Structures are given as structure tokens and as C-alpha cells.
């Protein structure tokens, strides 16, 4: 639901993994006497190599760039969550509906429904559109069909309340609280 670029994340992981594998093979194979003897005909390793002082500063610069880029990516991840469910402008006037309203409507509609333990609602900006995610925790051994019917009902009420159909994701989930919740004993 967040804004993170998943394709880029995969590419970063793949590149890092590939670099790690290549460096690992190079280090691991490079120090083995057998490998060194085998390649000594084709590649002549220098006996001595002095590290020049200027290259040290180049190493420092490269390291600094790597650190800055890595930390930038780490700290800008996520995002996209918002507390505004609907925003509508007409001229100078503006109406915003907070996620708390959506939360209240859903909680009220799902209150007392069998097999529902809790419902959590949050809203996100997805492609410049506001979408709501409704996560409903279903009791262990519960019946998802009745829960889904109740959620449908809640969404209908929500649509009527907001006066429009916002994109929603309904996630029927277990979660830790449903594991701890008591099974019903009487049918």
C-alpha cells in the first residue's frame, strides 16, 4: 500500500546479491594457492603494490557517496499514508473527510457481527487517489462469508455517507488477537 517502488527494490536486491556473490567468489578463489598457481600463466600479479595517498581520498569519496545514497533510500521508504479519506474542492471552499469518520462508520457497522474481532481502517494515497484499506480480524474457526456480507453492508453505508465510492481494499485476516480469542461454544 505504501509508495515504495517494488521493482526498484527487487533490482537493488538483485544487484547487491550479484555483487556479493562475485566479490565472494573473487576473494574466496583468489587466495587459494591452487587457483593462484593456475592463473599465474595468464595473469601476472604484481609482487608489490603501494597504495598511493591520492587514491585514499578517492576511496573516501566513493564510500561517502555510497553511504549517502544507501541511507537516503532507507529513510525515504514507505510513505503514502494519509489521514484524509476524501478531499473535495469547489472554488475557494474545500471539504475534507478524516479517516476517523470512515473508521467510525466501519466500526459501527461491524459492531456485534459474529466472528468479527476487530476492524482497522487506514487510508493511503495511491496514484494520487485516496484509497481505504479495511483489515478485518476474523475469529479462529469463524465464517468468512457472513463477515464479508457484513463488510459489504458496511461499505454500502460508507458509500452513502461519503456520497461517493472510494477505492477500498478489504483484507480478511487472522492476526494474533484471533488466535487468542475464545472459540464459540454454543451454536
Amino acid at each position, binding site marked *: 500500500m505504501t509508495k515504495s517502488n517494488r521493482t526498484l527494490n527487487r533490482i537493488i536486491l538483485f544487484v547487491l546479491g550479484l555483487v556479493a556473490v562475485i566479490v565472494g567468489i573473487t576473494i574466496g578463489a583468489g587466495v587459494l594457492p591452487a587457483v593462484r598457481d593456475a592463473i599465474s600463466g595468464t595473469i601476472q600479479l604484481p609482487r608489490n603494490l603501494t597504495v598511493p595517498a591520492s587514491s585514499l581520498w578517492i576511496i573516501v569519496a566513493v564510500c561517502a557517496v555510497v553511504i549517502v545514497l544507501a541511507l537516503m533510500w532507507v529513510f525515504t521508504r514507505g510513505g503514502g499514508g494519509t489521514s484524509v479519506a476524501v478531499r473535495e474542492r469547489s472554488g475557494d471552499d474545500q471539504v475534507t473527510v478524516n479517516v476517523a469518520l470512515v473508521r467510525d462508520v466501519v466500526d459501527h457497522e461491524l459492531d456485534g457481527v459474529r466472528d468479527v474481532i476487530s476492524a482497522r481502517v487506514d487510508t493511503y494515497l*495511491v496514484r494520487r487517489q485516496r484509497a481505504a484499506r479495511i483489515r478485518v480480524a476474523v475469529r479462529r474457526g469463524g465464517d468468512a462469508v457472513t463477515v464479508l456480507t457484513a463488510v459489504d453492508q458496511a461499505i454500502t453505508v460508507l458509500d452513502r455517507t461519503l456520497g461517493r465510492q472510494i477505492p477500498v481494499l478489504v483484507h480478511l485476516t487472522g492476526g494474533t488477537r484471533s488466535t487468542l480469542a475464545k472459540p464459540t461454544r454454543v451454536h
Partner: protein
Amino acid sequence: MSNGSVERRIRRRSVHRSRSTAVAVSLVVLALVAAWIGTEAVLAAIGRPPLLADPQTVVDAALRPDAAFVTIAEVIAVVLLVLGVVLIVLALKPGRQHRSVIDHDRGAVVIDTRILASTAANAAGMAAGVPEGNASATARGRSTKVRVVPVSGIPVDDTVIRDAVRDRLSGLDERFGRRVSVTVEEKGTLA
């Protein structure tokens, strides 16, 4: 209405796992390694004693490795190799979570496999007339396995149970009800 594309997107993103955490962890590790190399380079440049080894020592050791250096290098190499393979697998595998998509008119609906199984068990228990604890189910993909322990003295008909489970799961999405297998245990329990 453009709700469709947004809903498809958020549905897809909730079924597949995000690699954000893996990326963040590996980038932080990368930053730490870069910080160490940078510090060593600075210390060598201004002529201070190194933290672990200055670049000149490392280059010399790599060109003429002794036994101790070979051991260290092999350990580092194995760690890098394992990490690299793990990262590549994470990057290439689809990373599906244990969730299924349900076709629905309004909104995108995603259900945990556990809840799907518990719905099947619930339907089976009702149909067989056994207490809730006597019916269990596992779901994988679109096939569902139901196991019922009958209460002794009361016969259980597995076709009735299969029909009940199929009807119930079809209420969610008709694809789920197609492959249902029912096992009725030989031994019953006391009510």
C-alpha cells in the same frame, strides 16, 4: 471509473510481499561496510593508526597471503556468497503471501488462507453436526482439505460435508469450492 486500476494495484501489492525491509537491512549493512573502508582510508591518509587494518596491509596480504589471511578471506567469502544467494532469491521469487484474491463487485477483497480454511472447517462442522474442535481444514491455493472427527454413534456422510463446504466457499468465490477433499476419521470421540 478509475477505481478499478487503483483497486487492482492495492490488491496486487497486498498479495505480494514487499522487499522494503530486506532492502533497508542490506543497504544499512552496505553503508556500515563503506563507512569502515572510508574510515580506514582517512586514517591511513592522515597517518593515524588503523582501526583493524590499513589499506596497504590489506593489499600486501592479498598479494602474498599467509595461512591466517587465507582463513579470514575464506570466511568472508563464504558469508558474502551465502548473503548474495539469499538476496538474489529474495529478488527473483514472486514472494506471495498466504492470501488469496476474491472476485468481488465492490472493492478489492483479499483473504488470508487461514481464514479460508477456518471457513471450510466451520461449514464442515455445521454439516456434520460435530463440535467446532472436531472439524479442521487446510487450504492451499484453490484446493481445500477437510478433516472431520465424528462424534461416536452419529454417522457422518462425507458427500454431505463436501457439498456444504463447496456451497460455503462458493459464497466467497466459486473457484475455491471446486477442489474439496473430505477425510472422515475412523475413530470418533465422545460428545
